[in-house]
């Protein structure tokens, strides 16, 4: 009895942590926690970088400017080594994706109960709501809507660059004439190429989502099941996760650049 009761609490605890705060119904549901945190972090990114951009000096840079320039130059080098066309969009796009995704992933390192607990307290004392009814998922990249928004943006740009550089005919030709260049296999090529084209944004978003969701889930599991032992285990998992966080941000940025450079190259 006690076991089932305990399991129930753990599963409801996990359930509680994996549920978004929502507004609206059906398709017109908004995950306000995802939206709020991602937009706040987006503003953290653009405003902190903007502060450097506004007073960027060509002389000796300050410490903050130097660290921002480090990131900018890293992204710039990555873009230059991969994308050979001329585009004013690719590099800022890559920078935005890298820093924004990195910041959102870093939310994973905040102790899992900390922000939801604060939200619960505010809800309880400020609005008289039961803290169990207040949901708060603080890592926006554990929400498929977030990762799909990024990958769909990239997908649209892929199609835009393909059509812009190769023309609509060239883009279509790439879809049906690619692996087997014989007319009676065009239908087969088309299916193959469309699948591989659609797989790109799908894998892009699901990779980020999967990694972060799994990481968050394990934090929640550790927090929910291990009692006091969670402290060293949390530390170990956080140390390991510290590798995954920038890696996933980098992979997302890198693949964006690769897909866009593939889209803008003639074959």
């Amino acid at each position, binding site marked *: 009895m006690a076991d089932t009761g305990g399991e129930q609490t753990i599963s409801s605890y996990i359930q509680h942590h994996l549920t*978004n705060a929502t507004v609206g119904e059906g398709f017109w*549901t908004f995950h306000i926690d995802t939206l709020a945190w991602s937009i706040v972090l*987006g503003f953290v990114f653009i405003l902190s970088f903007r502060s450097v*951009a506004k007073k960027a000096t060509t002389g000796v840079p300050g410490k903050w400017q130097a660290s921002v320039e480090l990131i900018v130059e890293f992204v*710039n080098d990555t873009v230059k080594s991969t994308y050979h066309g001329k585009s004013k969009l690719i590099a*800022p796009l890559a*920078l*935005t994706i890298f820093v924004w995704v990195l910041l959102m992933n870093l939310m994973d390192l905040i102790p899992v109960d900390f922000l939801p607990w604060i939200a619960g307290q505010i809800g309880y004392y400020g609005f008289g709501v039961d803290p169990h009814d207040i949901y708060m998922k603080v890592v926006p990249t554990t929400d498929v*809507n977030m990762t799909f928004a990024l990958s769909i*943006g990239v997908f649209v740009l892929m199609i835009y660059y393909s059509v812009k550089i190769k023309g609509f005919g060239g883009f279509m030709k790439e879809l049906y004439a690619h692996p087997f260049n014989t007319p009676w296999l065009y239908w087969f090529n088309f299916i193959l190429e469309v699948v591989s084209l659609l797989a790109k944004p799908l894998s892009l978003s699901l990779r980020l989502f999967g990694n972060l969701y799994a990481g968050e889930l394990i934090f929640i599991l550790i927090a929910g099941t291990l009692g006091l032992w969670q402290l060293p285990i949390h530390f170990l998992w956080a140390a390991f996760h510290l590798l995954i966080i920038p890696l996933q941000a980098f992979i997302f940025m890198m693949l964006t650049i690769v897909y866009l450079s593939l889209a803008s190259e003639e074959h």
Partner: protein
Amino acid sequence: MNINATLLGELIAFIFFVWFCMKYVWPPIIGAIEERQQKIADGLAASERGEKDLELAQVKATDQLKEAKAQAAEIIEQAKKRGSTIVEEETLRGHSEREKIIAQGYSEVEAEKNRTKEELRQKVAALAIAGAEKILEREIDAAAQSDIVAKLVAEL
């Protein structure tokens, strides 16, 4: 894992952030970085040029120093040569002067000797005449014997 309108909101946020970054964040930062890189490259080139200039100047300076030393040595050599010739000339001149002075002395002494001889001759002639006069006072007329006296004078 449910797709809903959050996606649209995030898409709009994404587009806005990328647009803002492209418009107001990326260009000034990358511009500053590239300008600084250019500056550093220029500075390095300038320093390299300066180093080369310095090297050239050093080579030039050593060359000039060598030349100056050679010139100085030449001048000293010339001065030495000139000095020795002057000494030689002066010695030569002194010798000739001495010779001249000695010769003059000799000739003077010779002239004095001759004059004295002449004087002595005159005096001896007069003395002889006076002696002969004394001896022959009584029997010989001076005028008649003067040719003998003249003969005597000439023999002296």
